[in-house]
C-alpha cells in the first residue's frame, strides 16, 4: 500500500540489495565501552545494522540499552569504540552533528517542543537540512520564502504520514500521548535520517496504540528506512524486528533473528531466571 502513496522523497536513493553487492551497513559499531564511576554500563558492545532493517535492542532494565543509545547519539562519550555510519567513519562527539550525519532519535520520555504546534515541531526537524539564516529571515528573500514553503509542505506531509495531519496547528502538549509519540517520530523523520532510533516508543501505550505503532514502523521499513528500536515489549520486538541484540549488564548476550534469540538459553535466563531484574 505504501509504495504507491509514499512521496518519492521518503525513499533513500539507493536501491535494494542484491547478492553480488557488499552488505549496505547503515550502522556498524564495535567495541563500545562506557563506565560511570563504579558501574561498567557497556562492555565491548558491537552491532551491525543493515539498510532497510528494523533492528531491535532489548534487555532487562538497566542492561545499558539507553546508555548505548546515548552513546551513538552523542549524549555520552564512550570510553572506547569504533563507529561507522553508512560506510563513513563517524564520531558522535557533538550531539548536534549526529543528526547532521544521519541519525535521528526519539526519547523515552518524549521530548517535544511543548509550546510549539505539531507542525512547528516537525518543521524544526527540517532545520538540519535547510539553510536560511538571519539575513534571509529579515529581508524575506525569494530563496528564504521558497525554503519556508518547502519546509512547511514537507512537515505537513510527514504529519499525514504518521497519521496526525489533523492536529497540525495544535500545540504539541495538547496532543494525546500516542499522538505525541507519533509526532516525535515525524519530527525525527523530517531530518532525513539514515537511521531512525526509537527509544521505547511503545512505553505507556495501550494495545490499540501499539498496533498502530507497529503499523507505522512497518510503513517506515517499507519505505526503505532503517530503524533501531529499544523496547521492553518483547512481543512487539519479536514480531517487528528483522534482527535483535540482547544486552544484559552492559554486555551483548545474543544477536540474531528474533527466533534465534528467543531460543537462546542465556536470554531466557536473563529475563526469567534468578536474580530477577
Amino acid at each position, binding site marked *: 500500500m505504501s509504495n504507491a502513496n509514499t512521496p518519492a522523497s521518503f525513499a533513500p536513493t539507493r536501491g535494494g540489495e542484491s547478492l553480488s553487492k557488499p552488505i549496505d551497513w547503515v550502522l556498524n559499531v564495535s567495541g563500545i565501552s562506557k563506565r560511570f564511576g563504579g558501574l561498567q554500563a557497556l562492555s565491548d558492545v558491537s552491532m551491525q545494522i543493515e539498510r532497510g532493517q528494523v533492528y531491535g535492542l532489548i534487555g532487562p532494565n538497566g542492561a545499558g540499552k539507553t546508555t548505548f543509545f546515548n552513546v551513538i*547519539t552523542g*549524549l555520552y562519550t564512550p570510553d572506547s569504540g569504533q563507529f561507522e555510519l553508512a560506510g563513513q567513519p563517524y564520531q558522535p562527539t557533538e*550531539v*548536534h*552533528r*549526529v*543528526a*547532521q550525519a544521519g541519525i*535521528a*532519535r526519539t*526519547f523515552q520520555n518524549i*521530548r*517535544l*517542543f*511543548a*509550546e*510549539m*504546534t505539531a*507542525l*512547528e515541531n516537525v*518543521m*524544526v*526537524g527540517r*532545520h*538540519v537540512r*535547510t539553510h*536560511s*539564516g*538571519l539575513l*534571509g*529571515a*529579515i529581508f*524575506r528573500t525569494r530563496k*528564504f*520564502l521558497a*525554503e*519556508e*514553503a518547502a*519546509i*512547511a*509542505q514537507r512537515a505537513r506531509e510527514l504529519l499525514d504520514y504518521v497519521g496526525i495531519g489533523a492536529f*497540525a*496547528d*495544535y*500545540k504539541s502538549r*495538547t496532543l494525546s500521548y500516542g499522538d505525541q509519540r507519533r509526532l516525535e517520530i515525524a*519530527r*525525527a523523520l523530517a*531530518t532525513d535520517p539514515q537511521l531512525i532510533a526509537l527509544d521505547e516508543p511503545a512505553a505507556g501505550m495501550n494495545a490499540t496504540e501499539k498496533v498502530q505503532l507497529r503499523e507505522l514502523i512497518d510503513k517506515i521499513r517499507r519505505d526503505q528506512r532503517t530503524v533501531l528500536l529499544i523496547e521492553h515489549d518483547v512481543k512487539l520486538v519479536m514480531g517487528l524486528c528483522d534482527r535483535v541484540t540482547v544486552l544484559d549488564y552492559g554486555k551483548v548476550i545474543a544477536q540474531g533473528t528474533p527466533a534465534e534469540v528467543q531460543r537462546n538459553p542465556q536470554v531466557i535466563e536473563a529475563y526469567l531466571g534468578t536474580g530477577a531484574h
Partner: protein
Amino acid sequence: MTHTFLSKRGLGQPWLIFVLALALPLVLQSFGNAWVRIADMSLLYVLLALGLNIVVGYAGLLDLGYVAFFAVGAYLFGLMASPHLTETFPLIASLFPDGLHMSLWMVLPLAAGLAGLFGLMLGAPTLKLRGDYLAIVTLGFGEIIRVFLNNLDYPVNITNGPKGLGQIDAVTVFGYPLSRRLDLGFIELPSVTLYYYLFLALVVVSVVLCARLEHSRIGRAWMAIREDEIAAKAMGLNTRNLKLMAFGMGASFGGVSGAMFASFQGFVSPESFSLMESVMIVAMVVLGGLGHLPGVILGAVLLAALPEALRYLAGPLQEMSGGRLDAAILRQLLIALAMITIMLWRPRGLWPTPEHGKNLPTVGGGQA
C-alpha cells in the same frame, strides 16, 4: 505581511491602530509636553522589551543584565556626539576641529553593531550554563559594565565617571535637528513630538523585524532551544551558534534604543543603567506575555507609562498620607504590586500567545 500579521492577532483594523499611534502625540501635546515625553520614553522601553524578548521570549535565555546594551548604545552616541572627547583629549580635538557629531544614519547601524558585538561577547561565556546560573552571570555582566562606566574617569577620563556625558547632540534627520520645533503652519510640532515620530518609526521597523524573525527557520530554532535544548540538539540544531545569534540580535535593539535615549535626554550617566532597569525590562516582557509581540509591547507601555503618569496624579495622595507617600514611593509601590498581582492572576502574562494553536496562522500559510 504586516497587515496579515496584525489582523490575524485580533487587532481587526491595523490601519486604525496606526492612525491612532500617529495622532497620539498631537493629542497629548495639548495637555503638555510632559505627556509626550512619557510617550517617548515608553517607545524607547518598547524597543528594549522587543530586544530582550528575542533573548528571553524566543530563545528562553534569562538575561538579567540587558541594560548593559542600552548603556553601550547610549555611551557610544554620548561619546561620538558630544564635546567630551574633544575637550578631554587635545589629539581628538585636533582631528575633529568642528567637534564630534554623528548623523542618524551612522548612529543606527553603529549602535546596533557595537551593542550586537557586546551581546556576542557577554553571551559567549554563558553558553554552557544552566538557566538560573545564566541569569546571575548576565546580571553580573550588567553590573560590571555599570561600574566600569562609573569609574573609567581615572586614570584616563573616557566616560567622565559619575558625572556622565552632557551636551549630547540632538539627532538630525535629513539635516533637521530634532531639538528644534517644526512649524507646519497649521500645527506646530515641538521637539518631543518630533522624537516621538522617530521612535515610532524605529518601533515599527523593530516589530516587523521581530515578527519576521519569529516566523522563520531561525525563530523556530530559538524556540526549540527554549522548549527543550537537548531535543533541539538531537535534531541537529547548533545551539551554541543559535544562542549567540539570539544574544547578538537582542543586544542590537538595546544599543539602538540607548543611542536614541542619549540624544533625547542630551545627557547620560551610569545611574540610568542600574540593575533595576534590567529587572524592569524583564518584568515588562514577562508581565506582557513572553514571546508574544503584542503582549511585550503592552507590558512595556504599561510599566513605562503608568508609573510616570501617576507622578502627576500623586499630589493629593501625598497630602493624605502626611508626606510619607511621595510620587517616587508611589511609583515603586505600584510597580511592585503590579508585578506580584499580575503574576498571581495571569502567570503567563497579560497577553500571552493564544492557548490553542488551532486558530493561529501557520507559517507558510500567511506569507506570499
